[in-house]
């Protein structure tokens, strides 16, 4: 098994920051808001490794910084500090153009965009963030394919159809606008779009939150099927312990921007070590 992503001391502070920010925030301080300068320490010192084909869960309550972690890694938001290295498989890095190993936050914006369009995928809780609502479902996927590689119109359309079929979106609806879709269907289109370039690394942020249980179950099924077919490595952000148990092999637990516990998922759920995790797991039973 090879490492695909290495994250070290990732941090994101909203606001001016001051020398007391770090000591005045975190689980012990019971806040992420610095009382001295009013900055929000959204995340600090977040480190983890992800291996090829592995699914890592990021759990924690609202505001603990889960989304901030994946947003930084997907270049949605520049972090304030820390490092992340993406190890691409050499077969997929065009010779001379890109290194096999990418120091994510040291890249220029063109290089970051290239990775985002070719090698990473993201599925957001809010479909508005992941989809262009002004163009059809098929158009959304075509858009991503166009950004990644040049292909002729016919090939793109075929590919888009195949992806929507794989994610179980009715083909009769390829030309419909996302706003006319149900929530579950919008998530399927987002997943199809994220997978268009067959990325080895996928970020999923609360993708089933707010959906009916039966719709949720089918989306989770789909995610796992895809993971098994394509061996995609995933970082799954969710506050839902059921999702964590079904999807992930390892997990990290966050509170007020810090990682307070990491472990095998079954161990975190059945033998949580930290007082906070014990409360979290007990309240979900």
């Amino acid at each position, binding site marked *: *098994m090879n490492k695909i992503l290495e994250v070290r001391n990732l941090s994101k502070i909203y606001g001016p920051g001051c020398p007391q920010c770090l000591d005045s925030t975190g689980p012990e301080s019971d806040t992420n808001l610095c009382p001295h300068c009013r900055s929000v320490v959204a995340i600090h010192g977040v480190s983890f490794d992800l*291996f090829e084909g*592995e699914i890592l869960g990021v759990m924690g309550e609202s505001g603990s910084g889960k989304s901030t972690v994946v947003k930084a890694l997907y270049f949605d938001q520049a972090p304030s500090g820390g490092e992340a290295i993406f190890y691409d498989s050499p077969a997929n890095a065009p010779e001379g153009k890109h290194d096999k190993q990418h120091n994510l936050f040291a890249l220029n914006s063109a290089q970051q965009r290239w990775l985002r369009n070719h090698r990473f995928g993201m599925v957001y809780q809010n479909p508005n963030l992941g989809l262009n609502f002004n163009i059809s479902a098929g158009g959304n996927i075509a858009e991503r394919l166009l950004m990644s590689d040049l292909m002729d119109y016919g090939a793109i359309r075929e590919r888009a159809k195949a992806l929507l079929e794989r994610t179980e979106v009715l083909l009769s609806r390829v030309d419909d606008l996302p706003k006319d879709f149900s929530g579950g269907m919008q998530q399927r289109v987002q997943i199809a779009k994220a997978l268009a370039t067959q990325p080895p690394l996928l970020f999923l942020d609360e993708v089933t939150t707010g959906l009916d249980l039966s719709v949720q*179950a*089918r989306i*989770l*099924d789909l995610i*796992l099927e895809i993971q*098994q077919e394509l061996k995609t490595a995933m970082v799954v952000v969710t506050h839902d312990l059921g999702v964590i*148990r*079904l999807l992930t*092999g*390892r997990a990290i637990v966050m509170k007020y921007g810090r990682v307070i516990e*990491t*472990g*095998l998922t*079954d*161990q975190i759920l*059945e*033998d949580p*070590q*930290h*007082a906070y995790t*014990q*409360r979290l797991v*007990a309240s979900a039973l």
Partner: protein
Amino acid sequence: MIPPILQVESYGKNFMLHEQNKLIPSSHNVSFTVRRGNLTALIGPTGAGKSTVLKGIYRTYLPSAGRILYRDAMGHELDLALASEHQILELRRCEIGFVTQFLHCLPRQATLDVVAQPLFGFGVARTEARQRAAELLSAMKLPERLWSVSPATFSGGERQRVNLARGFIAKPRLLLLDEPTASLDPTTAECVLDLIEELKAEGTAMLAIFHHPETTRRLADQVVELAPPPAVEERLKELA
């Protein structure tokens, strides 16, 4: 003599419940070995920590004391209590199986695929893996009409057979069994015991907890009796 596959030395497990500020001892000073093609049975009253030992070996529980020495297929020895998370995941995928009473599976996955899953993980062709799953399920007399539906709504006994078939299918080097026949009627249980003997004969090392003493008598090569761990106060006195 060939070294054992598993050697547990002075294993202990306490749970620290922070909310209640309480230390709960669950297993205490447990030692035994498991050899290739042998079955070691754990016996003892409720509260003796039998399941806690199995879960400690599988690392669902983090051990508090002792060593859990495992010799892998390459002959390397490692302490499961200290192994990295990725090492454990790899062993779970390739060498160590665990049959529990619970089944966590996807709501939509057909029983046949749930059972074949470990083989899929090895890269065995789907049709071949499903074929093998079908053989095991029919050996355990799970009605064929259930094979194509999800086990999510199965009865306890049906579910247990799905769990067993999934645990058996990849022929793990070490198999942990927690009351594998508890919810089965005597005839079905008999089929399962036959399969356990078969797997044993093929070389799988097993560590098992059985509900019925006669099952232990019939299948076990070694029997380890566990006693409930002393309460914390007793232990403190011991140390004083």
